[in-house]
């Protein structure tokens, strides 16, 4: 086994995900030569960035087999290379693609994988991985049996973003997958329903709405809406407009509680919580969210939580650094306006 630390650089359509550089920074901190793996379209350009973020060497491929992410093709190339060079550690950003890579490479190499790490340290020569379990209600220190490549996926925003150093470069080596198109059983037909906006997982600031978004007593729904449910959803959409306005001034992502998603106010892609996305922003502004334990599971690692809720007894205030007991429909427009002034937008 070599002493190399490999870092998988996740990208989408030629844009690397920030969590990739966080993983690279962690690899550097652990010592040993750091090799970045960059696969897919635009890899040569991403390789240049990888050197600036600290990679000592890059293995890249723009093979047509890797035009779109397919776990079998990408994990296949990682294992092909890993079998030959036997890195001691493979770090992977825990994105949707990264989690597939982690699982499949471990299955093929027959080695251990620890996903969703929030901490990583070497103590007495062994690697100790901290990760949340039971939806963050508990933490575990997970360890590997010795003697083989170890794989750890790193939760986005749990590790510091390294500074890019311009002018740094290194040896970029092209690699070729041995697999051919005929070996694969999947084909990417395209992309649909892209939600756009700031990705929740990468967001520094998130403004989130809950059931309270539908509770504006001063709104009168249009007369042509037939039933109460339609009226409620219409009201909620007006409420979410206030959430979006604030998010837009702050350059923030929009989130939602499960209650808002289940009531049909906003699509599931926005859901933060145990059965939605787990986020870790610098600031989380919860509007009209009571803060059920399942919601907390998705956002409690935010550095600063701001809660706006009518109910002073809402559990969300137990997590919040700043709280406003009041109606989000009145507070949010004022808050958006104030930020617009102060931030000069």
């Amino acid at each position, binding site marked *: 086994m070599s002493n190399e630390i490999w870092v998988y650089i996740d990208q989408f359509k030629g844009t690397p995900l920030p969590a990739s550089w966080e993983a690279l920074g962690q690899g550097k901190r652990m010592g040993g030569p750091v090799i970045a793996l960059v696969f897919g379209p635009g890899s040569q350009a991403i390789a240049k960035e990888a050197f600036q973020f600290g990679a000592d060497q890059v293995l890249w491929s723009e093979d047509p087999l890797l035009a779109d992410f397919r776990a079998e093709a990408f994990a296949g190339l990682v294992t092909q290379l890993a079998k030959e060079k036997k890195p001691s550690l493979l770090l992977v950003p825990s994105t949707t693609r990264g989690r597939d890579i982690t699982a499949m490479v471990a299955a093929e190499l027959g080695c251990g994988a620890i996903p969703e790490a929030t901490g990583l340290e070497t103590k007495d020569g062994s690697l100790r991985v901290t990760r949340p379990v039971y939806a963050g209600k508990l933490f575990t220190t997970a360890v590997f049996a010795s003697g083989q490549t170890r794989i750890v996926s790193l939760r986005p925003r749990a590790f510091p973003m390294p500074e890019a150093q311009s002018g740094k470069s290194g040896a970029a080596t092209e690699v070729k997958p041995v697999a051919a198109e005929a070996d694969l059983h999947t084909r990417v037909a395209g992309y649909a329903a892209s939600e756009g906006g700031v990705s929740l997982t990468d967001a520094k600031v998130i403004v989130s709405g809950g059931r309270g978004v539908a509770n504006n007593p001063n709104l009168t729904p249009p007369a042509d809406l037939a039933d109460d449910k339609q009226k409620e959803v219409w009201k909620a959409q007006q409420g979410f407009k206030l959430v979006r306005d604030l998010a837009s001034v702050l350059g923030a992502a929009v989130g939602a509680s499960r209650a808002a998603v289940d009531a049909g106010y906003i699509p599931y892609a926005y859901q933060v919580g145990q059965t939605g996305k787990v986020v870790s922003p610098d600031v989380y502004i919860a509007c009209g969210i009571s803060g059920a334990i*399942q919601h907390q599971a998705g956002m409690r690692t935010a550095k600063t939580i701001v809660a706006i809720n009518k109910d002073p007894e809402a559990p969300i205030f137990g997590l919040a650094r700043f709280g*406003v007991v009041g109606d989000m429909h009145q507070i949010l427009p004022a808050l958006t306006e104030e930020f617009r002034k102060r931030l000069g937008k």
Partner: protein
Amino acid sequence: MNIVVCVKQTPDSAAKVSVEGGHVTWGDAPLIVNPWDEYAVEEALRQKEKHGGKVTAISMGPESAREALKTALAMGCDEAILVSDAGLKGSDSLGTARALASAVRKIGSVDLVLFGRQAIDGDTGLTAAQVAHLLGWPALTYVAAVEEIKPEAKTMRVQRMIDEGRQVVEAQLPVAMSVVKELNEPRYPSFMGIRKASKATIPTWSIADLGVEASKVGSAGALVSWSEIYAPPVHKVECEVVKGETPQETARTLVDRLIAEKVI
């Protein structure tokens, strides 16, 4: 179509989970079917209703996991198998995947295996892709919509939820897939279903039945283990309540405080 759905029994999502004497405990909170797996069961049933065939639920776990399988049967699954053996205790995700892949092979001629995206206890989310890999099948993870399945042509087309939106993927059956919540609304067990489930015999498959190497599963085969488990350090947050005579004044004070504390 011959469909298999894998379910795990977990503590209720609202349970207060803590550590006592190095062991995880959840008080009197009930054990349930892992919430993500309910979407997998529902989708398995819908595909069977559309294309005909059979749905088999399998669960790996202790004897108590039989209850999770009864729920799956009550929802409408045709058969259930408990994968249980003292030698499977302490399996890591790859060990679990080896046992489940062997169970799928033993069932034979399976077209589709479904999983929830992760279990809400271990929260690893690795098993579905690992089972797929061990079987040599494509893995379709985070499936948010099944556009179509053509059992005759042995193809399927799904939308996967990715960080950036949706990826539309076509695959050749057999396939192992993991599902997310948007896929469907799980049904409740019917009265008839509950009655049927209570009378059903659920066979237990051991390591010997599965034909897996005992050294590759359970704590014997685990390459990953938990050396410590603990409650997260409590960050005592004192909530500073911001007040004002008008919403504007409240907003101004809040922004002052957020800027002063360098939060924004």
